[in-house]
């Protein structure tokens, strides 16, 4: 039987199973910690750093930290909020995020976080990198302009033999996530849809499924990201 531990988040006494991911433990206690690269049910990666919180006054990512007894966690200080905003702005500057023409707009987690923090403009100069769009696949489109390299698709999407269908290609500033032509050959419609939904941005799209939800009915049109956790 698992033991429960007591810890404190922003002054609130919380209870959760020992060894649970902090981000999940916080969710159980109706506290939302913003994240981009973390996805429930797949192993954490800690690549986006947005879930950085202060644990006993030291910064650490909430997705890769396990809760222990008497942890004192602060999720929101002015420095942390500014740090989070900076990371989001960096992502907007680093890629080509043209929200008005994106199929994922309104359902995009990166955009929703930018709405949450009311980011009107990036403090960094826009980089406008030269990126390509992979559209050879029969069911999927991989748009490298929008990819934030969070690796959710690599970690979460496997074909029926258990092999990953996404993989890193190239190196350094040219790093990109590609669709593997072999393992992705005969993927089902459900798996393709799953791949699109696991992507926090509009980098993985199922063909002929763009702009399917009208404006006003999309996920983040009226609801702030994380409000479903906080308002439970």
């Amino acid at each position, binding site marked *: 039987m698992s033991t429960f531990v007591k810890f404190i988040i922003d002054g609130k006494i919380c209870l959760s199973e020992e060894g649970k991911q902090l981000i999940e433990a916080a969710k159980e206690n109706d506290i939302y910690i913003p994240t981009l690269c973390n996805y429930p049910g797949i192993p954490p990666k800690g690549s986006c750093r947005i879930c950085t919180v202060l644990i006993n006054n030291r910064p650490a990512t909430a997705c890769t930290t396990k809760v222990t007894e008497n942890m004192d966690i602060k999720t929101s200080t002015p420095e942390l909020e500014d740090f989070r905003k900076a990371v989001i702005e960096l992502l*907007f500057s680093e890629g*080509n995020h*043209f*929200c*008005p*023409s*994106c199929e994922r*707009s*309104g359902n995009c987690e990166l*955009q929703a976080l*930018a*709405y949450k923090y*009311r980011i*009107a*403009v*990036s403090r960094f*100069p*826009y980089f*406008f*990198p*030269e*990126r390509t769009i992979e559209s050879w696949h029969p069911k999927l489109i991989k748009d490298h*302009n929008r990819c934030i390299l969070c690796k959710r698709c690599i970690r979460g999407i496997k074909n029926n033999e258990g092999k990953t269908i996404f993989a890193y290609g190239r190196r350094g500033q040219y790093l990109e996530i590609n669709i593997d032509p072999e393992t992705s050959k005969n993927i089902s419609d459900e798996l393709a849809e799953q791949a699109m939904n696991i992507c926090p941005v509009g980098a993985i799209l199922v063909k002929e499924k763009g702009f399917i939800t009208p*404006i006003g009915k999309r996920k983040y*049109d*009226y609801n*702030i990201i994380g409000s479903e956790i906080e308002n439970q």
Partner: protein
Amino acid sequence: MTKKKKIIATASLAGCFGCHMSFLDIDERILNLIELVEFNKSPINDIKKFTKHCDIGIIEGGCCNDENVHVLKEFRKNCDILISLGECAIMGGLPAMRNGIPLKECLEEAYINGPTVKDVNPQKIIPFDPDIPKILNKVYPCHEIVKIDYFLPGCPPRADLIWNALYALVTGNELLIPYEVFKYD
């Protein structure tokens, strides 16, 4: 006692005029607005040149040619406060989608190789008349050319966002931005 009206100028650079259309979507509030402000150089009243110094300049669209840069610098000189209105002014927007393509390729596609032009331009001329504004190597957000004071995102920015921002700026009241009017699309 009548208060001095604030003076507003607006311009559309590399934009589609959608932000100006959204501005007109403030509907009957335009009657309240006209009590508070007067317009100077703007496509709304068709005044082509600044006739006096303005309090607020509203810029739609980024900079894609040297004329855009010239107009933007004129606005900076003639306005106390400059506002970037809409995605194109803020980050280049749709015109900036060409930034990943070399300029030469863009022009060749537009004037020589594109399916609608390849049969009608046998001499393969890319327009170069000195009267035509020179196109820049890429599309620049306004704040990378001059200092911009405020940013109102959206494609187009919601009319309520424009109204709330202008009203707060002109009257000095607190600016309230509800979540549903702060959008990028």
